[in-house]
């Protein structure tokens, strides 16, 4: 079990990681949306 005194320390670490996670999440979401668009265009392309 983690001592409570360390809880703040770990929470602080998360605050620095969050911006990275948000950017990576946005990139993955954008990449997936692009792939979906690309796949939906393909059937009518021929």
């Amino acid at each position, binding site marked *: 079990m983690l001592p409570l005194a360390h809880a703040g320390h770990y929470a*602080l*670490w998360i*605050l*620095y*990681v*969050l*911006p*990275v996670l*948000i*950017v*990576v999440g946005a*990139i993955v979401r*954008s*990449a997936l949306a*692009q792939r979906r668009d690309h796949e939906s265009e393909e059937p009518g392309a021929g």
Partner: protein
Amino acid sequence: MSFLPLAHALVSRQDLPVPAWLFAWGASIVLIVSFFALAAGWRTPRFEQAPTRSLGAGLSRALLGLPAQIVCGAIGVFLLGFAIYAGLEGTEAPDRNFALTFLFVTCWLGFPVFSAIFGDIFRPFNPWRAVGRAVGAGFEAIAGQRPAHLAYPERLGRWPAAVGLLAVVWLEVVYGASGGVAVGLDPHAAGVAALVYSAYTLAMMAVFGVEEWCERGEVFSVYFGMFGRLGIFGSRDGRLERRRPFAAATTWATIPGSAAVVIASIASTSYDGASEGAFKDGIEGVFEWLADTGMNLTTALRLTDTIFMALCFAGVGLVYLLGVRGMRTVPGAPSLAKLRVGFAHSLIPIALAYLVAHYFSLFVFQEQAQFGYLLSDPLGTGTTDLFGTAASGIDFRVLSANAIWYVQVGALVTGHVIGLMLAHDRALVYWPEYRRATASQYWMLAVMVAFTCFGLYLLSVSNG
């Protein structure tokens, strides 16, 4: 740089208007805004084959001619020789001996910063290059022919410099442990290390040639020269030229192992910053576990530090490789190997930013010692006062904790924005259609945000 632990303790405590972590969020927003500004307004490469302007022939002769080379080389040889002498013969007190501050602060931190502004200023002062060239010229005069050299293995590239760079930092921050306590490198060990490195370098120059070894294997030439590619002055065919800032960096990473050099630079700085802060609990845990197995305490501490340093190298390399791997998913992408090499130069400003952010205050404080009491009493014997400044000290009030933090944040943000610019410019070469170039750079944006937040986290823990 662990031999001056007091330098940080004597600075006033931070009193920031907002929590430190909010600076990471602010820095991330600056990077995202910069990214979209680049996407909107920068649609053709500007750094590749950027125009240069030759400076006057007279100025080139004066600064690059043989007399200037001899004088600069002699200065370099004298200073290295003097630092070795001070290390071997001077006091064992690290903060009173000229050698450590000169080698690990004035040179190690000064050359990158000034090279990033003015170009590769270490090259003319490189003591090993000066000796190697003098010996080569002597050989030619006596034998009537140039010395023959072995062909340098192309695949080896700059890997010797990358390994050497880690070794230099390892020597300074890891080797200086005694009885399980990190006491820092002592001047005598630094003097011996400088002698050993000099012998190794001169031997390699004899085998592969002076310029070849300086370009690929000599740690300090490669390391300082890397930052010099950001600077505005360079030379070509014996002529001094002015170039667009950062533009020369685009051709730096073409030699194998270059990415490893710049990753080693970021990793070693990160490790040095984290070892006293973010990694402290982890290091203590592994050290105690190794010590409990019966291992000698000094060996246990060195092994623990080495493991964490290697983890830093692997972690920084992995983040970069993930960014490159992400780019590969964009249609029209070149091979993974080409991407890996092609974007390595965009990490150079980040390496510089990490260096400035982590050591700016140490540099400001220790240079007061360098040009004060260390200059007057270089051996630290207390019996010499060459310039009447032997009794001077360090004024730690010249920088407040808040000022240091703002410089750290500013350096990290600026370095990463320049990194984004370099990466965006290279992407426009690989993907001439700018929408695809922009899409490829989402991944580098993530890399830059990750390095910025990581750097600020390390600093905030160290400062706290």
